[in-house]
């Protein structure tokens, strides 16, 4: 038997789940299981208690609240992939989700699980960072909201406490006609990306960039907003020269180094992918113009 011994719990309500979290010292929440189960099988984690939240009914939904879409923590990646609402209102997420693992894993994997696991190159945290999402967490006797900017505390370490669980994610919408692009480089389709870039552009008349959001995944210990690039874009008129020029600022990011790629390579990818993403996003914006950058 691969997983280590533990006591299994399958609460039917959020209240019961957080009560268990408060009571157990060394517990793990089991959401979609696409990260925790491999970690259990390889015995990287040895929890005394596993709290399975798959049987809690009211944790999976996608709600339209006008200026935002609100996702239940247990919303499956599959539901995001096939949601017309997401395709229409958060096209960046739709584009990104197709890079998340494979159909077999998206059928089980969840939004809240991906955020809680917080792999530095995972797509959903990167998109959440780009869209300034707000994560709601709950514990016994309390709830609070955490802005995505404050959500990562370090490498694979979200800032919520061990007795807290993600209940929903509020993703603010960008104006209709905004430009978007999610571009990543992975060695094989479906693998975690070595580096990804997520771009949102609000383009005004004449191609002037009213607002820009630029996020890179897989470069730092968690998805990172590249404010230097965003500032270089604000108020400027979109052009191939501008995008090529500002994307170079990605080479100044303090990048991670591991067996897959040295820091300089991640910085290089960040610059190249951001350049491509900017061009793609600008082409897609209602007030943008068609362009391709290599």
């Amino acid at each position, binding site marked *: *038997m691969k997983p280590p011994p533990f006591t*299994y719990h399958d609460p039917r309500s959020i209240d019961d789940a957080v009560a268990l979290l408060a009571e157990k010292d060394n517990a793990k929440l089991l959401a979609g*299981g*696409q990260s925790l*189960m*491999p970690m259990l099988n390889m015995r990287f984690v040895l929890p005394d208690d*596993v709290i*399975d939240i798959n049987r809690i009914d009211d944790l999976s939904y996608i709600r339209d609240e006008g200026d935002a879409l609100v996702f239940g923590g247990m919303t499956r990646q599959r539901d995001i992939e096939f949601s017309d609402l997401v395709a229409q209102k958060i096209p960046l997420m739709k584009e990104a989700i197709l890079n998340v693992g*494979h159909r*077999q894993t998206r059928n089980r994997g969840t939004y809240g699980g991906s955020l809680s696991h917080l792999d530095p190159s995972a797509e959903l945290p990167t998109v959440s960072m780009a869209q300034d999402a707000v994560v709601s967490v709950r514990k016994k006797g309390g709830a609070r909201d955490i802005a995505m900017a404050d959500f990562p505390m370090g490498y694979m370490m979200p800032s919520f406490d061990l007795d807290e669980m993600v209940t929903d994610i509020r993703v603010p919408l960008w104006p209709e006609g905004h430009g978007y692009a999610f571009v990543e480089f992975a060695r094989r389709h479906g693998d975690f990306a070595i580096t990804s870039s997520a771009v949102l552009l609000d383009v005004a008349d004449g191609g002037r960039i009213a607002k820009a959001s630029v996020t890179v995944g897989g470069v730092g210990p968690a998805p990172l907003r590249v404010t230097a690039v965003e500032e270089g874009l604000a108020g400027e008129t979109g052009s191939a020269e501008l995008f090529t020029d500002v994307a170079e600022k990605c080479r100044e990011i303090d990048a991670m180094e591991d067996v897959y790629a040295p820091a300089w390579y991640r910085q290089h990818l960040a610059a190249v992918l951001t350049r491509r993403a900017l061009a793609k996003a600008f082409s897609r914006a209602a007030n943008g113009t068609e362009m391709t950058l290599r």
Partner: protein
Amino acid sequence: MSDRRTISVTINGETFERNVETRLTLADFIRHECLLTGTHVGCEHGVCGACTILLNGQTARSCLMLAVQADGQEIKTVEGIAPNDQELHPLQQAFQDNHGLQCGFCTPGMLTTLLEFLENNPDPTEREVREAISGNLCRCTGYQGIVAAALDAAKRLQAGA
């Protein structure tokens, strides 16, 4: 003292009731408790796709689920694909006719994955087929025969063969 539960899982129309340790994976439950050894276990951490089953009609990696999570659910494994003992499903027949398998280790996962895929996408392109099976590793065929089989199966299923 091990943590145990009695669960009831319907696999290919037959209900299996067993008392199992809660840490048992669904893949091991299917193979060791229900003795349905058609579902193969390769990497046991969600990379190879050999253990793919259909859970309530949707593919899932059975090594990444606990057996207790399948309590009360319906599962289809490779043994449940053919209509009867004499005939193969058109997808299986297409695998045989197009050299879609050699050693057969990845085949149960390939078949279950493609079964769901062809239901959602009955007239796929070659590229779409390759993407659909990108989560299933095959070390024999070079995938060429599998892709040909999937495209052939799509035609057969559309023709109602």
